[in-house]
């Protein structure tokens, strides 16, 4: 956590020194500072942070690709005269335990078109997801668990 703060401070310093507080420049400063911190601290016992940052970016990339792909499929479904829907409410068992992780997971699931996080059971063991196209139930559950839950767990609970 302290490394993360240091990273942000260094990114801000980079932006201040170059005099341009644009988002692209801030992002570049963040990556530059990350490389610098990696060079400086990789030998100490702080390896966790250096694994987490690439994982966050990987999750973001995976999410964006999923969003684009699912939006195209949604467009095709909505615009075709006979909508090819196979809607279903599917129960997905949860391994994720932390509250923040659950909120993030259900938000990510809802923001990808076609799936909608409906509710989580009161004892937080099962999440109910509404989907537009249920092709194969096992494959769908596996997709959610492997795609989002595992990645989130590796970031939050590693």
């Amino acid at each position, binding site marked *: 956590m302290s490394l993360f703060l240091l990273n942000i401070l260094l990114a801000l310093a980079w932006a201040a020194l170059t005099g341009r*507080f*644009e*988002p692209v420049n801030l992002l570049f400063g963040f990556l530059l500072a990350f490389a610098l911190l990696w060079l400086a601290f990789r030998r100490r016992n702080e390896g966790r942070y250096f694994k987490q940052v690439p994982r966050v970016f990987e999750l973001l990339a995976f999410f964006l690709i999923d*969003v684009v792909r699912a*939006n195209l499929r*949604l*467009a095709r479904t*909505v*615009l075709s005269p006979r*909508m090819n*829907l*196979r*809607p*279903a*409410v*599917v*129960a997905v068992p949860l391994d994720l335990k932390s509250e923040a992780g659950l909120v993030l997971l*259900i*938000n990510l*699931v*809802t*923001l*990808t*078109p*076609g*799936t*909608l*996080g*409906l*509710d*989580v*059971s*009161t*004892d937080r*063991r*099962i999440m*109910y997801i*509404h989907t*537009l196209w*249920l092709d194969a*139930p096992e494959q769908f559950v596996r997709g959610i668990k492997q795609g989002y839950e595992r990645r989130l767990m590796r970031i939050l609970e590693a």
Partner: protein
Amino acid sequence: MLQMIIVFVLMLTGALLMLLAGIGVLRMPDTFLRMSATAKAGTLGAGLILLGAAIYFNDLAIYTRALAIVVFLMLTAPVAAHMIGRAAYFDGVPLWTGTVQDDLHGHYRRSTHSLEADMVPLPEQVNEVVEADDYAEEG
């Protein structure tokens, strides 16, 4: 010039996504499917249009404002969808007849508003479990 092209591409994509949400909410056959179309097509459309606006004005104050709205939308839209979806299911709004699977059926407890994963309805609890057919005769 290049800046204007990026702005136009972002705004047009955003407007198309919004139109997709509009057509989706009009054509989809039940409440949950309609929500599926609006919760993200609307949010992503608004996000893209905001990004276009931020790039157009190219001002730090507007970048931060745009970022704040996008983050806020992405955090709240799913929460709002979850709350309406839950309320609709609880209220007995029927699922579309073509729905292939409904794992949520009979898992809400009406007296406590809780959702119980492994509830097996006992004979005396049958009336308490929500069945999704309260609206059947109105439909």
